[in-house]
Every structure is written in structure tokens, then in C-alpha cells.
């Protein structure tokens, strides 16, 4: 089973993204704290795309698909904007961000901390970012 969402490229749609994820992540056995972090990671990627790749144009869309892939949770984010490769993005030093009083730049840092694997590909003008999280271990102590 998979859950799909087409998200309009405006920041006011982020609340819709969160409710979609809240529902679609419920079935996989993640704790509330884990789900919260997964939602955050997906939102950070989408917010980045909305603002930087699509210049907040509400007519453009980002496609999301939440599914199980190779016994892991996969959240696939596809769009046709300027490619933004998370994997090549160098995470800034926190102290530097504070010194420079920058208000951005830490979102991708969160994504990298939260997800177990990140995949990115750009083909024929279509970008796919796959955020992967291992399912919680069910082994009882």
C-alpha cells in the first residue's frame, strides 16, 4: 500500500503536508517522537523545494509517495524544479550559522540527522529525492 499527495508549491500548503504524513505514517509502528521527526524531515525537504526551486509558485506541484520499499519506509519526493541535490549540500557549522545570524541553512542538517538513507536522482528534468528510514525494531528486550 502507498499513500500519495500532490502538494502545491506554497508554504501555506505545509500544514496539509503534515496532516497527510500524520495519517500515512500511522501504520508503520513508529513511536510518536519518530513520526514527529519524520514529518519534520519531509517538510524540510519540501519547504526547501517550494522556496528555492519553485519560488513559491502555487501552480507548480511536488509529488509525494509514502510506501514500504525493501522492508524500509520510503518517502519519495519528486518535482520538476531546479534540481537540489541534498547529498551534495554541505551541512553548515552551527556556530557559524549563529554568528552570521542566518535564519536558514539548518533544515537539511535536520534531514540528514533524522533519516537513515537519502537518495537523489535527476533525470529528464524530473528530480527524485528518496528519504529512507528503517522500521523500528520489534525485538523485545
Amino acid at each position, binding site marked *: 500500500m502507498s499513500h500519495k499527495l500532490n502538494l502545491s508549491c506554497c508554504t501555506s500548503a*505545509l*500544514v496539509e503536508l*503534515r496532516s497527510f504524513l500524520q495519517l500515512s505514517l500511522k501504520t508503520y509502528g513508529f513511536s510518536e517522537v519518530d513520526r514527529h*521527526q519524520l514529518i519534520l524531515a519531509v517538510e524540510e525537504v519540501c519547504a526547501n523545494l517550494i522556496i528555492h526551486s519553485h519560488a513559491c509558485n502555487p501552480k507548480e506541484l511536488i509529488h509525494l509517495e509514502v510506501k514500504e520499499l525493501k522492508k524500509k519506509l520510503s518517502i519519495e519526493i519528486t518535482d520538476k524544479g531546479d534540481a537540489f541535490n541534498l547529498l551534495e549540500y554541505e551541512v553548515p557549522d552551527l556556530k557559524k550559522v549563529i554568528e552570521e545570524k542566518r535564519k536558514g541553512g*539548518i*533544515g537539511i*542538517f535536520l534531514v540528514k540527522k533524522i533519516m537513515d538513507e537519502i537518495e537523489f536522482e535527476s533525470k529528464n528534468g524530473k528530480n527524485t529525492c528518496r528519504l529512507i528510514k528503517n522500521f523500528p525494531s520489534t525485538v523485545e528486550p
Partner: protein
Amino acid sequence: MLQLERIKEGNKDILRLIGEVDASNSVLLDQSMQEILQQGATFLLIDGNQLGYISSAGLGVFMSYLDDFSEQGIRFAIFGLNDQVSEVFKILGLDRLIQIVPDKSTAITLGNEP
């Protein structure tokens, strides 16, 4: 949805965040912080009891003031965060840079320290 309430209590300015902070509304948080500081706040507390969510856009706002706080000797603390939100501060290591305390009374005692 984000609602901001400002409460003055003696020498303390409390900013209560109600709802969720994301890239669509973090500018409101920034404006409120700026206003409070411009009016000469010396002890700023963030009440997070009703904060359900904060993304990097909101965390970035707090971070952008940390240097000003230490340069100007302004006391700053956040209290009342739920487990999920508190965990997000920890992922970034912000719990080492910001005083994050369980409740208001603990936050207020911070202000009594020399």
C-alpha cells in the same frame, strides 16, 4: 496556524507560542522577538506549552538572536516544550546553547541566579 501572545510579568517578557511554527509563519515569530527586544527586554521567556511543532524556520529565528542575547546580557529561556518538540532542539544540539527548562517556575529561578 500560529498564534503569539505576549505577557509582561515584572521584569520578564513571556512570549507564548500557540500552534505550529513553519516556513509560512516563522516571520511572525521573528517580528515578535524583534519588537520585544526593541522595547528593552532583559529577560525573555518562551512559553512552549502549546507549541505542537517547530521546523528549522522557527529554530533559525531563535538561533539568529543568540549572539545578541549574550552580547546584551539578555536572559533567554524556553519552557514547557513537549517531548517531540524538545527532541528536535536536541537533534541540532540547541539544548546546549539555549536554556531549555521543564516549566515556568524553573525558568524564573534562572533569573534569580547571580
